[in-house]
């Protein structure tokens, strides 16, 4: 906002009797925000242009003949602004009443109910009872294609969705047709939003329940969902997201604002791919023994046996990592490999790759990357080499026939047969699902997915980003950093890392690329790695 060459300049104004100093060029809406006052707004969205057409953000500016739209009125020196004066309140109440003239008030069946800005504002300052006597106009609903449904009756005509498609997606597929009370949002002919890569964002920015997700339709109420800050695991861009969970199941993914990474947006591919986090049939208890000798064990027994086997094991070590694992888990695997072989251990990972990247034209930082896994860059930084083809298959010939120690972390080995690891003197499989290729494993240890643990990923920009635990892991699955950390600690004779921050601290000590980073410094918004360590 303050990039007009006069950056240092600030203005001081009086807002609701409170003096506030803001950079020149700040809108009154943001100035009010800085003192903790939220001015209602529909058409204004920080990621879009401000047409000042919803008329609900009007505030009283002393000296101005009429109320001013706070989203486009810039703060000026000495201004005296009232957001809560009787005139401003009366006006907001009036505007809200107009919005409700044709609004169906179908909150009980509306998916937006509970997070709807119309509901909030009317509850805060609207009239207690409606005065309308005329019948409301009825449009019904329209399938916009893709994942988007449009309920015209609920629409407040803020045109955020139209402007998102025009300005950010740069793919004009929505428009306003008709005028006055007959105005609706519509698509051009039958083209709709089908095939658009970022259209899901119009559901997020819709302030009311006019645009809803087909996938989420009637699935859960907004107030039942728990929100967990996380990182999108579906490509290596690592958009900041929230996991919305209920009953220990992920119900939907929503973008979390981070101007350095994804702005306010995320892509439809990432948004749609969450069902795998809820996949049932997980590995639930550690098991020891090959083939018919396989038996369940508790963690203490399994780790003690594994520790004894690792201490006695001979031969080279082959490590198969996975770019779906956190940095902490991969660093634990590297440390274990080093402890075992006294230096270099072969490290590979595989990653499915899309044919091309999908950028968001209006916000060029955001790109759906080729790597369809969250931590391929972290894996490469930690010394894992990319193997296999673009489907994430093949490339494990060495590990499959390796005669020494084979440790597989997180890779489900879907393309590998039962003969995988048959020659290995010791084969350890740490995974979330049992697989045919784990038949020869001496140890099968259940680990958690990223949604069930705390940790960090490195995204394609070379940015370390933390994610939090949103789901309860099944039975006795444990985070991989804890399992591997305990083994490394036992081999080295030191303390087991007790938490993800501790595991991260050890990772930062051991790997120069992460040097100087702390868990706190990474924070909720991530932190860039030092540039020269990041390749590509």
């Amino acid at each position, binding site marked *: 906002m303050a990039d007009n060459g006069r950056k240092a300049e600030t203005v001081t104004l009086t807002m609701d009797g409170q003096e506030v100093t803001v950079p020149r060029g700040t809108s009154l809406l943001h100035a009010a925000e800085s003192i903790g006052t939220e001015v209602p707004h529909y058409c204004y969205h920080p990621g879009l242009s401000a047409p000042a057409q919803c008329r609900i953000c009007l505030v009283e500016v002393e000296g101005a003949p009429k109320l001013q739209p706070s989203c486009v009125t810039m703060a000026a020196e000495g201004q005296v602004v009232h957001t809560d004066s009787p005139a401003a309140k009366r006006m907001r109440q009036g505007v809200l009443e107009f919005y409700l003239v044709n609004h169906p008030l179908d*909150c*009980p*069946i509306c998916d937006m*109910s509970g997070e709807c800005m119309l509901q909030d504002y009317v509850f805060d300052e609207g009239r207690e009872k409606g005065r309308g006597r005329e019948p409301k106009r009825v449009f019904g*609903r329209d399938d916009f294609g893709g994942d988007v449904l449009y309920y015209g009756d609920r629409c407040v005509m803020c045109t955020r969705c139209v402007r998102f498609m025009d300005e950010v997606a740069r793919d004009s597929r929505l428009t306003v047709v008709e005028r006055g009370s007959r105005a609706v949002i519509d698509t051009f002919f039958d083209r709709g939003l089908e095939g658009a890569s970022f259209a899901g964002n119009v559901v997020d920015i819709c302030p009311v329940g006019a645009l809803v997700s087909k996938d989420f*339709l*009637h*699935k859960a*109420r907004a*107030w*039942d969902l728990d929100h967990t800050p996380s990182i999108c695991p579906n490509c290596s861009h690592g958009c900041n997201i929230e996991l919305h969970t209920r009953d220990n199941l992920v119900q939907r993914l929503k973008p979390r604002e981070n101007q350095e990474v994804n702005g306010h947006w995320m892509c439809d591919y990432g948004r749609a791919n969450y069902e795998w986090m809820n996949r049932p049939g997980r590995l639930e208890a550690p098991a020891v023994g090959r083939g018919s000798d396989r038996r369940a064990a508790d963690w203490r027994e399994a780790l003690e046996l594994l520790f004894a086997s690792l201490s006695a094991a001979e031969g080279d070590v082959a490590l198969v990592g996975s770019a779906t694992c956190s940095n902490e888990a991969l660093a634990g695997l590297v440390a274990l490999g080093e402890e075992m072989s006294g230096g270099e251990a072969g490290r590979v990972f595989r990653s499915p790759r899309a044919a091309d990247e999908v950028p968001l034209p209006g916000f060029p930082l955001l790109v759906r990357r080729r790597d369809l896994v969250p931590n391929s860059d972290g894996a490469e930084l930690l010394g894992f080499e990319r193997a296999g083809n673009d489907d994430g298959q093949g490339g494990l010939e060495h590990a499959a026939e390796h005669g020494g120690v084979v440790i597989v972390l997180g890779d489900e080995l879907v393309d590998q047969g039962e003969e995988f690891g048959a020659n290995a003197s010791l084969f350890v499989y740490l995974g979330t699902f049992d697989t045919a290729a784990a038949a020869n494993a001496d140890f099968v240890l259940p680990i958690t997915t990223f949604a069930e643990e705390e940790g960090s990923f490195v995204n394609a920009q070379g940015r370390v980003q933390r994610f939090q635990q949103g789901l309860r892991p099944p039975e006795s699955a444990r985070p991989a950093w804890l399992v591997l950390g305990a083994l490394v600690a036992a081999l080295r004779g030191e303390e087991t890392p007790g938490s993800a921050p501790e595991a991260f601290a050890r990772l930062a000590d051991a790997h120069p690329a992460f040097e100087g980073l702390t868990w706190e410094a990474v924070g909720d918004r991530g932190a860039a790695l030092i540039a020269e360590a990041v390749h590509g």
Partner: protein
Amino acid sequence: MAISVKVMRRPEAGRMSYMRATLKGMSLTFRHMVRPTKVTLEYPEEQPELSPRWRGTHRMEVHADGRPKCVACGLCPTVCPANCIRLVGGEDDQGNRYPIVYEIDEFRCIFCGMCQEVCPVEAIHVGQHFENAEYGRDRFVYDLDRLMEQDHPVTQLWDPSDPRSE
């Protein structure tokens, strides 16, 4: 503050008479013998008259075409203090939102009637009903079909002519 104790003085032993109290009690007994006040009901032949505000097991109202009135808005499981309502919403073939699963655990229910009070479409009601005996515990989780089959009168949580009790 210490509790103040008032010492009651008993009348002296020779000056006490229970005659008056005994006669008073006996007169009541004889009065009832001549003109009895009936309290006991010949249940189940005779049924008690329940208050209009009696809150018993639930009943789901239905539309004329047999569909439940419930729109699966999720307010009753939200407001329920005993957490006894399980609801999974969905869409029927006509595009209406309806409950795919609607279960009330009548054992957990505390019959507060808040589900009825909160319902925006007057679908779920507590009822004027008390005969709930079953042969198994599992029968006390009432599913949607059972709630729709219930035919006892529903509770009137407030007087419609004076909804605010004024």
